């Protein structure tokens, strides 16, 4: 048998990953960078687990902490917020506001006792399709290690 190509290798790994329990991920994506990055991952046929449910927002500055809280209340195993890299915001400074707000949201989750590993915040640009797919794989694996979220009323 011939040696596997990189893509095939990744596919095999993904198949291994999908045999396990599948977490549910709520991903809040900025329209201009991260959503376009996710789109690129799709159109370039990069593989990533089908664990993610995407909500498109105009800007990471629109990612209300309530979206994150609602995600956990409704029982998502993990929530992620992705936005344009600092300095690259379509609206010039939306992601700067998001940066403070999301930092405080992380602290709130910590204060509430939600494990920090269940919330992920990253900067993903429109050209980083591979990074998007890698992030979803990574986050999915992280959540698989943690196991299902017991819910906020446990």
């Amino acid at each position, binding site marked *: 048998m011939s040696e596997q190509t990189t893509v095939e290798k990744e596919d095999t790994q993904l198949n291994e990953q999908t045999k396990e329990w599948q977490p549910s991920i709520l991903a809040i994506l900025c329209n201009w960078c991260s959503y376009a990055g996710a789109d690129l991952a799709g159109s370039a046929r990069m593989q990533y687990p089908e664990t993610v449910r995407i909500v498109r927002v105009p800007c990471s500055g629109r990612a209300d*902490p*309530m979206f994150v*809280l*609602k995600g956990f*209340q409704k029982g998502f195993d993990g929530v992620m917020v992705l936005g344009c890299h*600092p300095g690259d915001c379509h609206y010039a*400074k939306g992601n*700067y*506001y998001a*940066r*403070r*707000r*999301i*930092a*405080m*949201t*992380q*602290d*709130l989750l*910590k*204060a*509430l*006792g*939600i494990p*920090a*590993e269940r919330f*992920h*915040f*990253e*900067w993903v640009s429109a050209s980083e399709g591979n990074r998007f797919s890698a992030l979803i794989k990574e986050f999915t694996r*992280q959540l698989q290690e943690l196991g299902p979220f*017991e*819910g*906020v*009323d*446990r």
Partner: protein
Amino acid sequence: MIQDTIRQEAKKALESGEVRMVIGWGAGSVPFKTTPVFVDNPQDTDKLIWNPACTNNLAVYLTKLARDGKVGIVAKPCDVRSIVTLIREKQVKRENVFIIGVGCGGVVDATSLQNGDVKLREITSLEWDGGDLLVTTETTKTKLSAAAVLREQCKECDDRTPSVSDVSIGEAVVRASDLKIEIPGLSEDRQKYWAEQFSRCIRCYACRQVCPACYCETCFCDRIEPKWTAKKATTDEAWMFHATRAMHLVGRCISCGECERVCPVGIPAVELARELNAIAKERYGFEAGDPQADKPLLGNYQENDVDPAHHSE
């Protein structure tokens, strides 16, 4: 005496026509409790009182009463922090408030008096005597330690004189840190702790009603579309309400602890916002009650702010 000075200042302000009303504390139904009073006649200024039971944060009334026209308000240092926040957030105009600032040695938790030997109904006066509370009844004088009777948030508060005021009265010398009161740490398993706390919530919204920072005309929890929280009193809906409220209070809550005081089921709602504010102070150098800060915490940014990305690496 502080109480007389408050009355004189209120009278002066009302008689000169500078303010149309003075908001202050008046005698409650029992001697160890007080109630908000709204004095609009100079003859009624003797209704105003001052003692260690003057607990209400009266700034909550300003958003409605100081909207058109100037009102006077008797304010402790923590109440002044609330007023400062309201002014920064453009809910109240500075020129519409006449602040009668009062130095404060902390306020008393009325329920804690029940634990002593004091006959509550016979109490005639409460006053601070150094680090102790002097409780006087018709027949007895009892000294109770501050650690036993202070409200929780007063045990950590060193803000003894109002940072902003038009008239400043009295000065309390004993700071909370001088009393060296031990504050118990929070539970290890936070998730379980809060689930237990929130499971008691009956969603009466008293915490929101009493909060000077909760001035939204329509609270998110009263909205039907989008429905952020359902009306049912289940733990997860209560979690959503309290978690969101804590997030909304980041950089705005001044830890007066009123939400905790009015809660009929004893949820320590102020803990979350207090914890977040401590982080905000350390990370962004922002304090909610600081008159020097010109923009709200989350309505501002610096290009070199801490980056919350890559936290898992």
